[in-house]
């Protein structure tokens, strides 16, 4: 740094963050970027953001992309009912069951378990009876 030079750019120099402002798209396209580095460039004259990424070697072509900034308008009636509601509506409810259905299934299962439990002694009794007959 030149001694006595005004430190107007000091903060910027200490924090190179891959972001810069340009006056137009042409300046963004020709903005110098180091190999293997990606820069985000904000257009001062319009609602655009550009990204310019250089390849690892000088032979690789730079990748330049242009994005349009769209202002998000808050809705007057339902300010919070936006993204969450959309997600809820998009859920396929046919994959879920109601509590009543699950309770009915539980009751049926319990009844079957009872029936099975009562069947086991019967089998034993039958086997025992067969053994007695053989003797």
């Amino acid at each position: 740094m030149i001694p006595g030079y005004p430190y107007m750019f000091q903060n910027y120099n200490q924090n190179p963050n891959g972001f810069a402002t340009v006056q137009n798209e042409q300046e963004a396209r020709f903005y110098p970027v180091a190999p293997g580095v990606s820069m985000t460039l904000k257009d001062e004259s319009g609602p655009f953001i550009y990204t310019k990424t250089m390849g690892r070697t000088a032979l690789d072509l730079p990748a330049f992309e242009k994005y349009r900034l769209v202002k998000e308008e808050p809705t007057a009636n339902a300010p919070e009912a936006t993204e969450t509601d959309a997600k809820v509506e998009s859920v396929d409810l046919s994959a879920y069951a109601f509590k009543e259905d699950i309770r009915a299934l539980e009751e049926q299962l319990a009844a079957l378990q009872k029936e099975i439990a009562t069947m086991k002694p019967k089998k034993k009794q039958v086997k025992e009876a067969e053994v007695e007959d053989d003797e």
Partner: protein
Amino acid sequence: MMNNIADMMTMLQQIKADPIGMLSKRFNLPQGISKNPQELLQYLLNSGQVSQGQIDQAMQMKKFFMK
């Protein structure tokens, strides 16, 4: 302080008079290199003689002084 400003003004005058010559003295620029500032900066970046932070700073300074 005054001396520093005077030195800086002299340096600026020299750069204005022969920018490529001054750059060639400071950096090892090949002969016949483009005089386009962006291409020169890209060359310095590619050859690892300057960092991206320095380029960003130079571009901001250019914007500041060209206003």
